[in-house]
């Protein structure tokens, strides 16, 4: 195989084969197979030079090397948890990686079973009965939850209540998912980092389709009155959608126990920092089974009366219901779901709970360390925290963020005098260095 040949290195034809195939078809040359009017043909060049594997790896590595080598204490929805080697090696098996959606279940039992196991783990973690086998990310899962609420709620109400403090990405994506509806998005206030339940009670009314809350919140605080929100939503016939993540779920209150109707979020399992590539969780109650977006794996029997897995209830989906489908999603994040299930199984219940507990103690330790530094107050909110927390600064947070970069650390500046730090097991070893750097810039 030529390294940078004339054609595609992934089209295996020899010249003799090409000729034989053209003969079999009965045409002179390849060009004769194209039924394209002259007018629209492209006779220019893209100016993209073919490169060898080796060159491309080097080229990309050189680009990546231009990124500053910072230790990131970043979170706000995208978390860097350590993923065991086993996950890469097994998920990369080409039978998984290079397979398609399981439209022929008889030759896709392996992936289907893995997705079924993924769904089951989410059922355990959330206490809700139905989990789909992935959404793009937490933001689109939230958007899907809102459109579900608008369809499923019998009373006509179009207000969707979201917390005032919410990751920009989630809010902006939600707005787009609702752009085609008459729903209005309203923000309810927060009190010291958590939902202001009194204010929420005042604004929540029978014309609300959905109330959204997060646990942990975008600032890492742990909500203290979720069941009150669940009851409030229930009183008014609004759906209660809870945002969380795969690790937090193993420790914090079980969503079913606080009255959540839909649980969404980014998995935070299966992939570490990956530039935003993630996995959207979506779980809900059995009552909404026929309103669920995306794919569902179910159990059935094969012709030998053995247990077999298959995609099911597909009449909800775009390829059958077209413009009346519950969602437009087709390609999803199945392989990331496979990885997340592997990761969770590798950790086991003990490991997962332990990881979640570390998210509490590591954040607490770092906050304690920072609080000792003059010019910063940590955490800014008098709450329990999970993984991340905000820090009040005397100096400009933006300036401090920039100076921390010079010291080798990436953190969030989220307001004039607020920084945000996120700790996981991947950066917990560097909290001494971080604290020292904060001391320098504070």
């Amino acid at each position, binding site marked *: 195989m030529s390294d940078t040949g004339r054609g595609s290195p992934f089209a295996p034809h020899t010249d003799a084969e090409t000729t034989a195939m053209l003969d079999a078809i009965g045409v002179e040359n390849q060009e004769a197979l194209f039924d394209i009017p002259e007018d629209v043909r492209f006779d220019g060049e893209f100016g993209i030079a073919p490169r060898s594997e080796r060159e491309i790896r080097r080229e990309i590595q050189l680009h990546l090397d231009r990124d500053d080598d910072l230790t990131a204490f970043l979170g706000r929805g995208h978390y860097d948890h350590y993923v065991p080697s086993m996950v890469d090696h097994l998920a990369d098996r080409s039978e998984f990686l290079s397979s398609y959606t399981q439209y022929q279940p008889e030759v896709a039992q392996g992936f289907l079973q893995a997705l079924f196991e993924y769904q089951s783990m989410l059922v355990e973690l959330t206490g809700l009965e139905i989990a789909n086998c992935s959404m793009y990310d937490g933001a689109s899962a939230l958007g899907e939850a809102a459109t579900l609420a608008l369809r499923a709620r019998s009373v006509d109400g179009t207000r969707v209540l979201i917390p005032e403090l919410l990751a920009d990405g989630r809010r902006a994506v939600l707005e787009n998912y609702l752009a085609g509806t008459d729903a209005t998005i309203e923000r309810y206030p927060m009190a010291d980092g958590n939902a202001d339940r009194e204010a929420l009670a005042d604004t929540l009314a029978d014309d609300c389709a959905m109330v959204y809350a997060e646990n942990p919140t975008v600032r890492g605080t742990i909500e203290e009155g979720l069941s009150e929100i669940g009851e409030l939503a229930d009183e008014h016939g609004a759906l209660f959608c809870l945002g969380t993540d795969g690790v937090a779920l193993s420790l914090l209150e079980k969503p079913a126990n606080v009255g959540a109707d839909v649980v969404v979020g980014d998995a935070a399992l299966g992939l570490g920092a990956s530039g935003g590539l993630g996995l959207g969780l979506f779980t809900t109650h059995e009552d909404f089974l*026929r309103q669920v977006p995306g794919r569902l794996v179910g159990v059935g029997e094969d012709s030998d009366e053995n247990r077999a897995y298959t995609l099911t209830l*597909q*009449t909800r989906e775009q390829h*059958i*219901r077209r413009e*009346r489908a519950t969602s437009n999603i087709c390609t999803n994040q199945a392989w990331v779901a496979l990885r997340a299930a592997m990761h969770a199984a590798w950790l086991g219940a003990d490991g997962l709970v332990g990881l979640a507990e570390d998210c509490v103690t590591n954040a607490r330790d770092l906050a304690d360390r920072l609080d000792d530094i003059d010019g910063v107050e940590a955490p800014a909110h008098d709450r329990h925290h999970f993984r991340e927390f905000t820090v009040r600064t005397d100096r400009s947070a933006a300036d401090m963020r920039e100076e921390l970069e010079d010291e080798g650390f990436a953190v969030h500046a989220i307001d004039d005098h607020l920084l945000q730090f996120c700790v996981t097991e991947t950066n917990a070893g560097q909290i001494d260095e971080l604290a020292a750097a904060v001391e320098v810039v504070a």
Partner: protein
Amino acid sequence: MSFDVPDDRGYMESHEWASDEGGTARVGISDFAQDELGDIVFVEFPDEGAEIAHDEQLGVVESIKAVSDLYSPVSGTVTATNDELLDAPELLNDDPYGEGWLVEVDLADESGLDELLSADEYRDQIE
């Protein structure tokens, strides 16, 4: 293939039937319809007490690979629903004119039944 089309009821072009039960009508889907759909896995129909109107949407039937809207052959008030179908939608396949009935309707206007296709007319349509 020939389909069962009993003479004792009227039909819609959209393959629903209604039979005269004296003031009320029973409503279902035809043998042809169930065959076209294939294995039916889910049905949705209005609750008792719902008002329905001729040629307006009555409900939905789903098979594995298709979703079909049902249209009401008659106008009136739903007085009974065949809840057996919720657990055993296959009754629609197995016995579309008997145990697979969908709803019973208290007719707003009994002459409504006369406007439906006769068995012969419907047979012509599906042949």
